[in-house]
């Protein structure tokens, strides 16, 4: 470890600039020296043509909203199709949630105790009890509608985007036994395959016979999801929808059709309207308390350890920047970290541990100095002797957070993840950042 600290210093400076850049909020219309400045860290993504936005993801407990756990009743579903049915039910819920137009709703599936199929829904901002009921009030309805002459006044009728008049047929989701994604034998393109029950096959044959050259619309929850033209009568009970799909869109359609074919009744296992714990006024208060806490740490460390304390405070500031930067950066990856109150608790604990690492090192240095060792030796000994306790205490914290992450449910998981990230970065901050600063200053 006798490398020149200069490389490390450049690394630290580079990371700091990056972290500051990521953490900066959007700034617009700043007037300075007769010029107007605009700044947005996200502009780099738009320049690079990446459709991502860096933001802190706030959990429901910070933002407020509705959280639901739905139980899927799988009594009538064969065990082979349970997962498909659950995914289809999830798609339906997603579609209905999207109708509310809120940002960042979360819909997840979970299988508990091997046999409890659940859908977890989190809708930020929405707190109306009745809207929640509508969300799961009905099981998905899949129906087929045929094109009719635009002059005929049949009802119930529906008009699709191209102005085609449609009439409901007697064919429904219960007539479908199965849907899959397959690949066309002619051109290898993805297509969606429907297999009808024997009753369904009969109805489907009748309908396609009279609809050759016309459209047959597939309607889910009163929304047209696809309206292919019937090319020829289909008598065999197997239909294929080709429509220039990609594999993704074909899978999406198949899942939606399954939702109608495998209707899963849902019931609410738990539902809660979460008042934002830190609602806007008290968020300001808590931020103030956080800032105050930080100032207290800085003063305390400076009083106790003088110049060393100042260095530790700088290291701690960088630590906070790194952790926050990582949180914000994670929002553009598939593994976004959501900030919740429990996550913030984990963050506070990790700050405590970062401070502790500095205190351990400084106390040890003081001791070595008291024994009359030269300063440079005392610094190195302080680090190497304090290292074993920093290592062991942090590894046990990592063990705890790992176990909590494995076993815990939502809130506990969030806490564990933030704690683990915080501990890892705090080790880096104490051992690399503080040490490099000290070596440079006392060289």
């Amino acid at each position, binding site marked *: 470890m006798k490398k020149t600290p200069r490389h490390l210093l450049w690394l630290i400076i580079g990371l700091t600039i990056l972290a500051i850049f990521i953490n900066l909020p959007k700034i617009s219309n700043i007037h300075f020296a007769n010029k107007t400045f605009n700044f947005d860290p996200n502009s780099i993504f738009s320049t690079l043509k990446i459709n991502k936005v860096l933001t802190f993801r706030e959990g429901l407990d910070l933002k407020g909203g509705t959280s639901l756990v739905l*139980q899927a009743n799988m009594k009538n579903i064969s065990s082979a199709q349970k997962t498909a049915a659950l995914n289809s039910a999830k798609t339906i819920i997603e579609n209905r949630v999207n109708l509310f137009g809120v940002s960042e709703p979360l819909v997840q599936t979970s299988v508990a105790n091997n046999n409890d199929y659940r859908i977890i829904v989190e809708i930020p901002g929405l707190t109306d009890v009745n809207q929640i009921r509508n969300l799961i009030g009905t099981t998905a309805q899949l129906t087929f509608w045929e094109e009719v002459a635009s002059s005929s006044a049949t009802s119930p009728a529906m008009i699709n985007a191209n102005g085609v008049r449609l009439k409901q047929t007697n064919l429904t989701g219960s007539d479908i036994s199965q849907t899959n994604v397959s690949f066309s034998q002619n051109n290898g393109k993805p297509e969606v395959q429907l297999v009808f029950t024997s009753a369904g096959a009969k109805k489907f044959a009748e309908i396609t016979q009279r609809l050759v050259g016309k459209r047959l619309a597939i309607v889910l929850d009163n929304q047209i999801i696809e309206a292919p033209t019937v090319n020829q009568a289909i008598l065999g009970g197997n239909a294929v929808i080709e429509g220039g799909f990609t594999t993704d869109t074909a899978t999406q359609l198949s899942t939606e059709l399954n939702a109608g074919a495998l209707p899963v009744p849902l019931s609410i*296992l738990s539902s809660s309207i979460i008042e934002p714990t830190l609602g806007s006024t008290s968020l300001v208060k808590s931020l103030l308390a956080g800032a105050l806490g930080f100032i207290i740490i800085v003063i305390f460390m400076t009083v106790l350890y003088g110049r060393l304390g100042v260095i530790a405070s700088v290291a701690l500031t960088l630590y906070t920047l790194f952790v926050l930067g990582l949180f914000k950066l994670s929002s553009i990856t598939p593994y976004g970290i959501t900030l919740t109150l429990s996550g913030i608790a984990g963050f506070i604990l990790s700050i405590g541990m970062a401070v502790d690492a500095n205190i351990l090192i400084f106390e040890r240095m003081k001791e070595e100095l008291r024994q009359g060792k030269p300063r440079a030796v005392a610094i190195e000994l302080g680090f190497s002797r304090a290292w074993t306790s920093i290592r062991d205490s942090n590894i046990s914290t990592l063990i705890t957070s790992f176990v909590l992450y494995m076993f815990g449910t939502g809130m506990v998981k969030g806490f564990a993840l933030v704690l683990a990230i915080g501990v890892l970065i705090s080790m880096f901050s104490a051992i690399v950042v503080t040490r490099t600063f000290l070596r440079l200053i006392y060289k």
Partner: protein
Amino acid sequence: MNIIGKKYWYFLFSLIIIIPGIFSLLFYGLNLSVEFTGGSNLTFGFPKQVSSKEIKQISTIFTQNKIKIQNISMSGNQVFIKSGPVDQKQDLIITQAVKNSLGNFQQQSYETIGPTIGGETLRNAIYALIVASFLIVLYITWSFRSVPKPTSSLRFGVCAIIALIHDILVLLGLFSIFGHFLGVEMDSLFVTAALTVIGFSVHDTIVVFDRIRENLKRVGGENFSEVVNNSILQTLDRSLNTSLTVVLVLVAMLLFGGDSIRWFVVALLIGVISGTYSSVFNASPLLVVWQDLIQKRKK
């Protein structure tokens, strides 16, 4: 300063805090929120102040629908009901019945948690605690394997976990008392605070143990209790400084943070103070007690 010499006084002090808590846990239990017990929280907003007679009418409606009310309270125009689980159908029936007898009102919140979910959260947290304790004992036993005889590294792991259990008992006991006398509910925030305390407790204990390990390697394990005493004294500054920093930050949060996190911060404060105390005055002295017991048996 001789901490080891007065060790039984320090154990006694811990017991004075823990025993009332244990009695409270046995007699009053924990005031769990519906998040864990399963049940419903409903808020009704009326156009005008509600009388106690009307509150009684609401209770009767719940009883008629075979739903047990645990608590019903009001503040201004709002009525808060904590009850057994109310499903959506029952909620519709009840709100209709309340409308019929008391006139129009708004259901402002509806929160219901099935007993399965509530139980799961608590059960998973407890499983996690047991598994984590076991793994920490394993890790410490491995990491302290170089401590010289006559002591053994397994004892370090076990004593760290005893200190951890001490801190959890202090926290649970005090919150059981708070729950009974002040109506403080144990909710998911409390679980978070408890997890934080667990992390802090083990962290703190290991720092002291690390010093004992280092000193044992240097001077050997002949005069064990003296080595432990010296190690505690050498790390005392650090223990006090670290927990003082954290305590100061928490006090700032207590004074200036919002109401909603008040009890969360109180739980953290209790846990941090208890964690520091137990790592200095319980975990390390226990190592000495263990050592003495084994030596007595040999004689």
